[in-house]
């Protein structure tokens, strides 16, 4: 059972940042993981009054506030259209509607959880994280960083022309994924992001150029085989490393073909 000594609804990001510098402080996301922890939080910092629960959009990018719920992202028409439905595919199996109404994108990304469908999906896109102190950095760079005491303000997804596809394998439909996979062709570069390895998602590009001349059945297979060798996996009780490696190839193959069909 989590114990909270103080709860503060901050008035601005500066206040959030200042409060968060103390050990024992914590910025609240959806509370879904936090409430299960057996720990004491001196100061729980709530960003709920900072207007970060909005998705804004201009010609170049989507701006997704840290407090936007996963459900709002799932239902967002613009993101749906931009990703050909891949974002919705990535989020729809996360526990349930009520859960996704609470879970925040800020909490999901900040946690850099290994099982995260959210991180897996956004890594495949041209995504940046806006930090209060750290400024705007690529999501890839953020994902590799150790958690510090900065404040995650929003995600910025550039509307770089792209084609996307998402798939996961789950032992039970609303369980954590055994493996999650997002494939993309972002302005000519093919990317594969693999999460729930079970480690944190990683994203690689088609640096060998398997797909440079377009996607065929055979090239998709070769690309998938190559990705299989590039993505490290490990075992936990949801699946062994060997199984995850086979899934990596299988999902990569299937998603690459899907992207090929989408492009054709």
């Amino acid at each position: 059972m989590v114990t909270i000594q103080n709860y503060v609804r901050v008035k601005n990001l500066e206040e959030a940042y200042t409060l968060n510098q103390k050990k024992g402080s914590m910025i609240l996301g959806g509370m879904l993981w936090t409430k299960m922890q057996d720990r004491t939080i001196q100061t729980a910092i709530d960003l709920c009054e900072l207007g970060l629960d909005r998705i804004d959009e201009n010609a170049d990018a989507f701006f997704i506030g840290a407090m936007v719920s996963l459900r709002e992202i799932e239902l967002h028409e613009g993101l749906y259209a931009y990703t050909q439905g891949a974002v919705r595919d990535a989020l729809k199996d996360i526990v349930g509607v009520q859960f996704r109404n609470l879970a925040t994108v800020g909490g999901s990304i900040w946690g850099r959880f290994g099982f995260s469908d959210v991180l897996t999906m956004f890594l495949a896109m041209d995504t940046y994280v806006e930090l209060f102190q750290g400024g705007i950095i690529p999501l890839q760079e953020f994902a590799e960083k150790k958690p510090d005491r900065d404040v995650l303000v929003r995600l910025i997804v550039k509307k770089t022309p792209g084609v996307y596809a998402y798939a996961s394998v789950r032992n039970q439909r609303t369980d954590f994924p055994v493996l999650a996979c997002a494939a993309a062709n972002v302005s000519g570069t093919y990317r594969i992001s693999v999460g729930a390895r079970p480690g944190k998602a990683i994203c690689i590009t088609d640096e060998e150029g398997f797909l440079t001349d377009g996607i065929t059945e055979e090239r998709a297979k070769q690309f998938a085989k190559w990705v299989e060798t590039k993505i490290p996996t490990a075992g936990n009780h949801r699946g062994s490393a060997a199984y995850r490696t086979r899934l990596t190839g299988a999902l990569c193959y299937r998603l690459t073909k899907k992207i090929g069909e989408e492009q054709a």
Partner: protein
Amino acid sequence: MDIKIKVNGTLICESVSPDLLLLDFLRKHGCYSVKRGCETANCGLCTVLLDGTPVLSCSVLCARADGHEVYTLEGLQEEASGFVGFIADQGADQCGFCNPGFVMNTIALLRENPDPSDDEIRAYLAGNLCRCSGYEGQLRGIRNYLDYINRKKQGKE
């Protein structure tokens, strides 16, 4: 800390611990329909409407609900009565322990999408576990209700 939450239309002002969960607050205030079925936000039994949105009250701090409006099944008896009889006709209420959360989320579904397909119903209610019914009877009940409403709209009932 002092909070103000409107529960089923009545404003409650109270001093609470910052870690009090909405679920426990609601039960303390007589909303016994709100059930706890797990500690891991997996079962959906504690579903309530927070400003009209279905959420897991086991994962909402009272502190965060401060200034907001909450509805539990106690406050939505009439809206629920419209369709729960169709579930009862299927015998799908069974042990009943998951019913309040299921009914609350069905209310949210029907407000958002008054004429959902079977697949839309399954997807929206996926976070509401039930160990007794096998779900098919719940689906039949909702389907029969929707058919009844649609017939009524067409002036056939």
